[in-house]
């Protein structure tokens, strides 16, 4: 180390010397050899050149200079080549590829405490590309702070991690001291702060999607070091899940999976569209009820229990085409993070999971675009600076051209059918100054379809959010987010003019949230915040359509509610091996007037016949009031450098329910706010996990087990009327749920072969609670929920043949979902009907599917006009007839069962993607 310092010192001095001994040269050369140039130069100056004749024989010199300093001439000469030179006294060393350092850095002798940044290092003339440049940075030794400071005790190192290409601050990058494994995660400005002992250290910096880097440094006192990360050059290297490899073991968080968009692009999907939610279902503990549905069932929770956030705003319906696609345009997504357990106190409002989807910020440096074509949709994304390095925009548009396809397909049953969707994402990212930034984000998606019938369905999401990030000082920063989300649908029927109608539903929420994170010291990081959320819902509005319609208007009263929360959390580093997160959230909910509420005979079942009175509540009056504490606790105990044990407990409260008596989420489901009779749901989860990394973190393994209870979820009386029902409480039943499971995961994140294998054993049950036994489902016993699939196995593999070809293979297996089947038939008035078993006592056959895909990248010239890639995929390669559903038809007074497979044969697709 000492020698290095001397070396760096010399480097500095020589710069000064060189500057004082400027020698001017004059000559003209045309296509001369380097040797000829050297001879001339040596004659005109006192310098002597040291160089390798063989190495320089390809270098031809054409130059015309008149009284120019030698330094300038050399710079001009070596521009665009791999040659560099160094000057030491009267000698000039010409080297190829690697610079010879002849001096030491300034602070070594220089008394005043200077932060060494790359700018202070003498400029190196070379043609090194970005990657090699960063490699060079990795080999340097940086001196931090004032050398005259006492050499004992701690020092604070701060800095900003940026993307070297776009200037984007790298949020959530891990900066870690390699030897002690103390580390931190960068804040929203890409800042980090580390407490280090004085002396030499190696910093490891990692970030999903970026090339990991290291910095060697000697710390004398407090100081700062900015680090640029280069992107893992995307067309060349597509790596699977690359989340911080040791975070799984070292991080406090459990039950979390982070995926980046590159991972998702590799996974073959049915219709050639990269789909973030579909990929999520390949993770352990996440299931769906069927192939064409998007509702995620996370650890035995229902699909309405997921907090799906897109840039901090909630999305009510994340599906297009009834679930064949998710509404997120893959080109605008940066990352997707799923929390299945151990939610921190800043999240609340849903029981099962948090799915945090982040859109990219626009490129701050240059204007770029990307897009693609798949068999069903086309997309285009544009981004670029508005004010360079300060403000950028990103705009992504995706739309289907299925109507055009439908027009081409001459199928009689598709005549008069239309189906459309589009989604638009826009955001503006503005860096106000070093301590403030603003992200404005808007998103809309819309679907419309009419299929041969005269009933037209439309649904749409609209969200907007503004997020202000402010850094108070190096220890405290905060966010303020204001958001608006709306979901609406309408069904219009024009079968016959007298019964023509238009039925609509809408729910909207306006929310505000602010969070503060205070980095106290290496032992404590505090977080605290408040949030408030106002709901507005129009639960049903039936109107006649057209002048001939005799449909009576039927408008359910609007619903409104206020949900607020206050939280506090502390990340505690108890010892080197034990760390802890303790958080507490208090949420409070008021169901507000104006609204009429029916009352029922006390102690009697909620039935129309027991209705006694109607209470009128005025505008803004509280009708029902709920609230409670939600403790959150996570604990990590490091068993060794590569293994840890984690525990977590969390309680969640949910004040909104989805009314749906279908198996899958449908666009016309009703979101119902908790009211006097429909109590908020409460979920508790305990989980435990063991994490072990093998082969220097190359292979991650984990086993997690969980147990969960859910109170006050909803079940339905037989034939419940959910639509336009002003007293929904008479048709629903209170239910409790329980779920438990074990998840195993083995993941290899990098290398020629990468991917993961997971196995999950999980169960999920519901039990209805009612005073009237005949009304309960399955006589009030626990029964398997519709998404109870005990065994699930996933294999996601990727093999890189070369930089331009990579091959992916998925295999998915799961137990068939529970169904209710008829046990018998009976005859009423000449017609045969089905007599059903108790609910969900049977299962459809097990599910197994294999998909493959090949990604072919265009050539890798960096300065190409546009980069393109092709993905050729085959979904369900084996053509297995996986049952989507089972149904019974009465034929000749007998019940005959059938299985329907949606993708019953291999489905090949080709997708074209481009970037410019």
């Amino acid at each position, binding site marked *: 180390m000492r020698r290095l310092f001397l070396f760096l010192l010399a480097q500095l001095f020589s710069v000064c010397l060189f500057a004082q001994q400027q020698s001017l040269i004059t000559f003209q050369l045309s296509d001369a050899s380097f040797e000829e140039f050297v001879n001339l130069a040596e004659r005109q100056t006192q310098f002597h050149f040291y160089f390798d004749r063989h190495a320089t024989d390809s270098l031809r010199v054409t130059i015309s200079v008149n009284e120019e300093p030698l330094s300038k001439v050399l710079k001009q000469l070596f521009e665009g080549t791999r040659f560099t030179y160094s000057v030491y006294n009267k000698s000039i060393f010409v080297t190829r590829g690697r610079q010879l350092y002849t001096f030491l850095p300034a602070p070594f002798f220089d008394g005043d405490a200077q932060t060494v940044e790359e700018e202070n290092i003498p400029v190196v003339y070379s043609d090194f590309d970005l990657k090699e440049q960063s490699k060079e940075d990795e080999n340097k030794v940086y001196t931090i702070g004032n050398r005259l400071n006492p050499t004992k005790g701690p020092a604070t190192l701060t800095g900003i991690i940026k993307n070297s290409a776009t200037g984007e601050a790298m949020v959530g990058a891990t900066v870690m001291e390699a030897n002690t494994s103390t580390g931190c995660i960068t804040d929203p400005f890409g800042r980090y702060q580390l407490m280090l002992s004085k002396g030499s250290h190696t910093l490891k910096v990692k970030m999903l999607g970026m090339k990991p880097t290291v910095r060697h440094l000697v710390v004398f006192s407090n100081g700062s070091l900015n680090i640029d990360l280069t992107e893992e050059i995307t067309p060349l290297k597509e790596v699977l899940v690359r989340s911080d490899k040791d975070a799984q073991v070292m991080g406090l968080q459990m039950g979390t999976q982070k995926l980046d968009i590159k991972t998702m692009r590799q996974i073959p999907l049915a219709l050639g569209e990269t789909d973030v939610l579909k990929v999520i279902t390949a993770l352990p503990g996440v299931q769906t009820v069927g192939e064409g549905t998007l509702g995620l069932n996370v650890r035995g929770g229902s699909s309405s229990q997921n907090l799906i956030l897109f840039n901090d705003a909630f999305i009510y319906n994340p599906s297009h085409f009834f679930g064949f696609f998710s509404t997120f345009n893959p080109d605008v997504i940066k990352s997707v993070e799923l929390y299945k357990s151990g939610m921190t106190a800043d999240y609340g409002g849903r029981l099962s999971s948090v799915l945090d989807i982040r859109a990219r910020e626009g490129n701050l440096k240059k204007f770029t675009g990307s897009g693609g074509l798949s068999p069903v949709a086309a997309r285009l994304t544009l981004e670029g600076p508005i004010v360079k390095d300060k403000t950028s925009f990103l705009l992504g548009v995706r739309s289907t051209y299925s109507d055009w396809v439908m027009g081409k397909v001459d199928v009689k049953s598709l005549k008069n059918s239309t189906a459309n969707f589009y989604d638009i994402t826009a955001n503006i990212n503005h860096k106000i100054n070093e301590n403030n930034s603003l992200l404005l984000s808007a998103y809309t998606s819309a679907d419309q379809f009419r299929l041969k019938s005269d009933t037209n369905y439309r649904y749409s999401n609209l969200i907007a959010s503004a997020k202000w990030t402010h850094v108070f000082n190096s220890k405290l920063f905060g966010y303020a987010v204001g958001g608006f989300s709306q979901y609406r649908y309408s069904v219009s029927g024009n079968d016959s003019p007298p019964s023509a109608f238009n039925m609509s539903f809408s729910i909207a929420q306006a929310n505000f949230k602010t969070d503060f994170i205070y980095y106290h010291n290496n032992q404590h990081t505090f977080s605290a915040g408040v949030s408030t959320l106002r709901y507005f819902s129009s639960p049903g509005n039936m109107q006649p359509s057209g002048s001939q319609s005799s449909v009576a208007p039927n408008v359910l009263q609007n619903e409104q509610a206020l949900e607020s929360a206050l939280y506090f959390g502390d990340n505690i580093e108890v010892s080197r091996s034990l760390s802890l997160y303790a958080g507490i959230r208090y949420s409070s909910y008021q169901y507000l007037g104006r609204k009429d509420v029916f009352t029922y005979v006390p102690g009697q079942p909620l039935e129309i016949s027991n209705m006694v009175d109607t209470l009128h509540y005025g505008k803004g009056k509280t009708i029902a009031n709920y609230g409670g504490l939600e403790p959150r606790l996570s604990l990590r105990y490091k068993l060794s450098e590569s293994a840890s044990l984690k525990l977590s407990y969390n309680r969640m409260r949910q004040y909104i329910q989805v009314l749906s008596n279908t198996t899958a989420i449908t666009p016309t489901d009703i979101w119902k706010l908790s009211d006097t009779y429909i109590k908020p749901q409460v979920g508790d989860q305990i989980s435990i996990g063991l994490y072990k990394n093998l082969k220097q973190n190359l292979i991650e393994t984990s086993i997690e087990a969980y147990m969960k209870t859910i109170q006050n979820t909803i079940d339905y009386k037989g034939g419940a009327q959910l639509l336009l029902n002003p007293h929904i409480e008479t048709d629903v039943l209170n239910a409790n749920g329980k779920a438990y499971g074990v998840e195993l995961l083995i993941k290899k994140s990098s290398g020629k072969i990468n991917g993961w294998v997971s196995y999950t054993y999980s169960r999920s049950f519901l039990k209805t609670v009612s005073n009237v036994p*005949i009304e309960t489902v399955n006589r009030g016993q626990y029964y398997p929920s519709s998404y109870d699939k005990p065994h699930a196995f996933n294999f996601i593999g990727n093999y890189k043949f070369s930089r331009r070809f990579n091959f992916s293979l998925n295999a998915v297996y799961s137990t068939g979902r529970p169904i209710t089947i*008829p*046990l018998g*038939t009976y*005859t009423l008035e*000449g017609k045969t009907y089905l007599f*059903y078993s108790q609910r969900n006592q049977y299962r459809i056959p097990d599910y197994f599917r294999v998909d493959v895909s090949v990604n072919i990248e265009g050539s890798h010239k960096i300065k190409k006009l546009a980069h393109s890639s092709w993905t050729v995929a085959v979904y369900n390669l084996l053509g297995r007839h996986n049952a989507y*559903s089972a149904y019974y038809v009465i034929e000749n007074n007998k019940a005959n069962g059938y299985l329907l497979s949606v993708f019953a044969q291999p489905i090949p697709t080709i997708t074209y993607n481009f970037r410019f």
Partner: protein
Amino acid sequence: MKYKWYWKILFFMTLASCVEPFKPSVSLTSINVLVIDGFLNATDSTIQVTLSRAVSVTSSDSSYAESGAQVAIQPDIGFEYFLTETSAGVYTGKTIISPANKYRLLVTTKDEKKYSSELIDILIAPPIDSVYWRPMPDGVALYVDAHDSEQATRYYRWTYDETWKYRTPYYVYKKWLGGQLIEVPPANNICWKSESSNEVLVYSTQALKDNSVSKFQVNFLPMGIQKLSTKYSINLHQRAINSNIYNYWQQLQTKSQNLGSLFDVLPTQIIGNVHSDSDPAEIVLGYFSGSTVTSKRIFIDTLDLPHYLQHWPEYYNCKPDTVFAGDLSKAPDGTLFFNSWNFGGAPAGYITTNTYCMDCRLSGGKTTPPSFWK
């Protein structure tokens, strides 16, 4: 079968779907569930209660009649009235049913289990305004209009009886019998056939401004069927129901059309208004209701149909066949002939065809017209 939008979506999305038979291993081979179906007709004072048992899917039987039960109706004021079993599992009676009373059904099965219904009201059905038909591109649709000026009901149920006349294309005139060709009068070439509805037709005007049923389709006759071959008649019966009965039938209907999609309502056991008194947890199926019944009959003559609907392919494959006079002895006994051709003044051959094309009874009809036929 009614296609629903999501099937089309699936179809469109994939064009790769496939349907296969499904026989899950159901361990249960017998189920013991009583089905009670009762109706009090306050217009003609008839009562009919049908008792049966549900049949396991694994069984090849279609239904089990429940015989030997004691069945009674009990008015809220007055005495029980016992029904008699007129055929296996069918219990009938005739007594004055007063809309002023409420009634309960009491059943004691032969295994001594007691069942009863809730007390029901006798509902008053308004008259049917009109029953009419409209030609459609692929058949004839039949509609009903109705309203209740008394505002007694907003829920309607219809049943109907259909009767139709049809003809064979050939009339018999001779028959080969016992080695002789005998002259027979033309017979069995015109038949009448009847059927009762088994579709559940219920409708609610609850969501409408006016309590009036307008152009509710009660039946559809596809082009080319026997019913449209000559003359058709429908007698539509209208009952008043209440919201519970409406919901019951509505649910049964949606269940019977359940196609197993994930967007279908989760199936449940649909429980009516009858229950077991012996074991409250026992599942009993069926419904007991009562109403006055109003009826209206219309006729459709095929000649009144648009020309494109006047075709009936049932007998298109009736190919005449000639038996030469000399070969008559080889003809089977009972061969029917509808014509002959002469050569030199004497019959040289007799023309026959498939018996089915000359005897309408073979298509299931009766040769006597019903009393209402005109």
